[in-house]
């Protein structure tokens, strides 16, 4: 089963990457762009046929490794 974990900085935490990209858009002439936030996507295969088990495992993997809960939030999606 395919899992996708999205990791984003928490609301209120400074996002230097987003800030720099937002600035680059201005330079490139995209003048109508508001706040930019950058996150990570981790896609992986887990060997199980059970959607719920897959979701639970994705959650466990995010907590243990993929997200730094001090500054990041995450969301787990299980693909169809």
């Amino acid at each position: 089963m395919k899992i996708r974990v999205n990791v984003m900085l928490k609301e209120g935490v400074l996002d230097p990457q987003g800030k720099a990209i937002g600035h680059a858009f201005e330079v490139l002439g995209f003048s109508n762009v508001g706040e930019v936030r950058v996150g990570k996507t981790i896609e992986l295969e887990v060997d199980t046929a059970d959607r719920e088990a897959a979701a639970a495992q994705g959650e466990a993997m995010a907590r243990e490794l993929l997200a730094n809960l001090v500054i990041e939030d995450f969301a787990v999606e299980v693909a169809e």
Partner: protein
Amino acid sequence: MKAGIVLFPGTNRERDMAQALRLVSGRDPVMLWHRDTSLPQLDLVVLPGGFSFGDYLRSGAMGAHSPLMREIRSFAERGGHVLGVCNGFQILTEAQLLPGALLRNAGMRFLAQEHFLRVETADSPFTRDWSKGDVFRAPLAHGDGNYTAAPDVLDRLEAEDRVAFRYVSAQGQDDAADRRCNPNGSQRSIAGVLSENRRVCGLMPHPENLVDPDLGATDGVPLFSSLVKSLVA
């Protein structure tokens, strides 16, 4: 040799590069600002190391879109000589003045260590003061130096003798699968490449940090003396 060094916000090895050019060529380079919209009369444009725009999206990605890069592209198209070191190499690939791309180091860590390079061709304005097969020391200082390109691009680079430098062991052995020889995991151990007309060169290591006998090493001198020979008519 009249050289210009491009400054992006976040560039940090411009002083090192200026010092090397001054020591070897006897002439002060001019400093160029990324927002400039014209280039002065120059023999050589150098993109130095650093973290242009913090390297926050991809190393070199935002630098490649600076206004001055348009001028540098047409300078290169007119046959001008361009050297990109470290972040400069990344910018040149992002701007597609050189083929390939630089991924995160295979070990996922920033590498800041002395390492060895082998000169793969002496047939270029950047390498003529070396002989093919020469091995020299050069410091590495990068997080994204893992060179990659499609297999047909790599084949073509080799067929056209456009691999300038390879990572090797102190004894000069290359082994792409062995991190002791090829520390960042680059495909085919490639550390530096040349453009089709051989006048644009990019490499990850820092020969500009090994040109001063007072600091104990001169391994990087031939890069600059080659350029002086080639560009001082």
